[in-house]
């Protein structure tokens, strides 16, 4: 078991998946999808009308949850999707703002909630004490 960056993982996976890729250009399209798309897209915080939500910093069910402008690009290559970042015990929770202003995270991806704080709290409940980890592969 090794922990690697998301970008490395994506490249490795696309190669290993045996998907029909034409070469380096095609591979790069998939391998860089998260960073490339995030870079060219409007930031998550501006995806919908209205101001970015308020920052928060609280202990919820024993976990330190924080939200607000990201600091220094995050721990793992700055893969947050915009100008709003959420962490649980210091580890980044990947969050995204929907077009209607609601939010989701990688933990509760299919269930939009009203605010990033609500998304952070939902993730804490779902984690049941488990730590967030950078994308991990065998």
């Amino acid at each position: 078991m090794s922990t690697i960056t998301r970008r490395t993982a994506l490249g490795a996976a696309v190669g290993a998946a045996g998907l029909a890729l034409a070469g380096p250009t095609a591979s790069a399209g998939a391998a860089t999808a998260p960073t490339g798309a995030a870079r060219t897209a409007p930031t998550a915080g501006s995806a919908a009308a209205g101001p970015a939500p308020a920052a928060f910093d609280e202990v919820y069910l024993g976990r330190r949850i924080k939200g607000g402008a990201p600091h220094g690009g995050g721990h793992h290559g700055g893969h947050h999707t915009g100008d709003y970042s959420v962490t649980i015990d210091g580890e980044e929770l990947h969050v995204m703002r929907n077009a209607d202003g609601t939010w989701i995270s990688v933990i509760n991806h299919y269930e939009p909630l009203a605010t990033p704080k609500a998304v952070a709290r939902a993730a804490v409940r779902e984690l049941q004490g488990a730590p967030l980890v950078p994308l991990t592969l065998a």
Partner: protein
Amino acid sequence: MTVRKNQATLTADEKRRFVDALLELKRTGRYDTFVTTHNAFIMSDTDNGDRVGHRSPSFLPWHRRFLLEFERALQSVDTTVTLPYWDWTADRTARSSLWAPDFLGGTGRARDGQVTDGPFARSGNRWTVNVRVDGRDYLRRDLGAGGRQLPTRAEVDSVLAMETYDTAPWNSSSDGFRNHLEGWRGVNLHNRVHVWVGGQMATGVSPNDPVFWLHHAFIDKLWADWQARHPGSPYLPAAGTPDVVDLRDTMRPWNDVTPADMLDHTRHYTFDTAA
């Protein structure tokens, strides 16, 4: 020719072969590459940026190709295996045979959500969750938690009745069939089923739960059912649309397939019912 069957009608032998092929793909590492690809698109598909696999018109053709790749991988293990579909309007409780120990196993235990029976339980040591976003390496479920209900047949029919495939702004706020089927708007079909299963199915690494494939095989069938009801309604958008996959644009990560190529499923498989 591949025939995709309702999971409720599979024989014991068909279930065993499907499960064995899943376990073999898992053993060799091929299974996990599909999980990684899915999560990459989950995290990069954004409403105001480039979007391919989700929250966009190509949600349906992208997943059709994704399932075809996976089905071919299964068939490289056992040529008789096809993807079953789960009609969650009919098999709508945790007591369904879908969740029996001889098929996918059941819901998770209260303490930590861990699935403890069936071929994917941690005790079998054949289904370590390697591609993950938190520290837990075992399959988890929380079927119907909080009293949530699966979509009904009437709700499905209300979405199948929609005439238009998709509409601007071609994202999670769109009107039209695709977004109501995906579930960001309206009665919420696809997204709700992910949440109903819970555990990994509620996350970006949802294909870690094998039920992902049976769920999406049914979503795929609903697209075919909609096409049959609306033969005059084309895939949209047709051309020149920023950030989304038009009819004849190629889709990442394959870059050799367009939505137009995916419109006719009968070139690849049929269903066990008249569409």
